[in-house]
């Protein structure tokens, strides 16, 4: 190694880079090695970014683990929602499916037509409200809108469709048979 380089490493430089003779007197009392300070700051920031990278990788594997648990739970069991006679045309019924903390909404759009969706908005999980007059499902938090017939987003910040609850009608009652999450 060149001895001159070694000496240059040990110089105490001011932040503006001007020589020591041009610096104010007080700087001699507080001789901070700014180049070394900058070097250490960037080196430590790089180390912190590698730590962030580790956190992001753990996050990815956590999603994989959650996916494994979801697959292991399997298909949810069939559940009775309501008697057909209790759901008037143009009315809605709120129910919980497949678990007690998963709110869903059933809408009778016509005499023989029903649709049911998860009630959590796909943007930030606010409760969505069916609006039959405008043929949409409205999210009051950020003015998001979903198409009533398909559950796909039509306006506002949501990008994913609402999860659709598959339905079946048996013996005058309506049942939920499964839930289908979608990306498009």
């Amino acid at each position, binding site marked *: 190694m060149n001895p001159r380089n070694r000496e240059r490493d040990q110089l105490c430089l001011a932040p503006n880079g001007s020589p020591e003779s041009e610096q104010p007197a007080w700087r001699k009392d507080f001789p901070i090695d700014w*180049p070394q300070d900058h070097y250490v700051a960037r*080196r430590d920031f790089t180390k912190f*970014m*590698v730590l*962030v990278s*580790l956190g992001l*990788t753990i996050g990815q594997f956590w*999603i994989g683990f959650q996916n494994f648990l979801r697959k292991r739970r399997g298909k949810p069991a069939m559940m009775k929602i309501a008697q057909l006679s209790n759901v008037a045309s143009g009315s809605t019924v709120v129910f919980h499916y497949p678990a007690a903390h998963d709110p869903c909404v059933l809408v009778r759009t016509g005499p023989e037509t029903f649709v049911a969706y998860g009630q959590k908005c796909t943007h930030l999980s606010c409760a969505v409200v069916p609006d039959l007059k405008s043929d949409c499902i409205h999210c009051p938090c950020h003015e998001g809108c979903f198409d009533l017939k398909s559950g796909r987003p039509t306006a506002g910040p949501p990008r994913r469709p609402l999860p659709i609850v598959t339905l079946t009608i048996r013996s005058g009652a309506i049942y939920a048979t499964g839930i289908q*999450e979608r*990306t498009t």
Partner: protein
Amino acid sequence: MSAPSKADYRRFTRDQRMVIVYGILCLVLILVVLQIWLLTAIMNAFLGGDESVIWPAAITSLVCLLLNGGLLRYLYFLDKPQPAV
């Protein structure tokens, strides 16, 4: 100013090391941004029920981490005192 001890000798000068650290930092930042993009895309796919991309993305993220780890190892190596020649 006292003469530097043998332990102060390093392969590169501080200015040279600074340039190397900037280069490493740029690469690490690019990889971290890629990982952030992967995580948001996979979160969206997971919440939408699409399972096919989860594990390939996790492996890609792991590869990025390993690359970052290699760069970090070199960063430690840079600061390691070298025996005087």
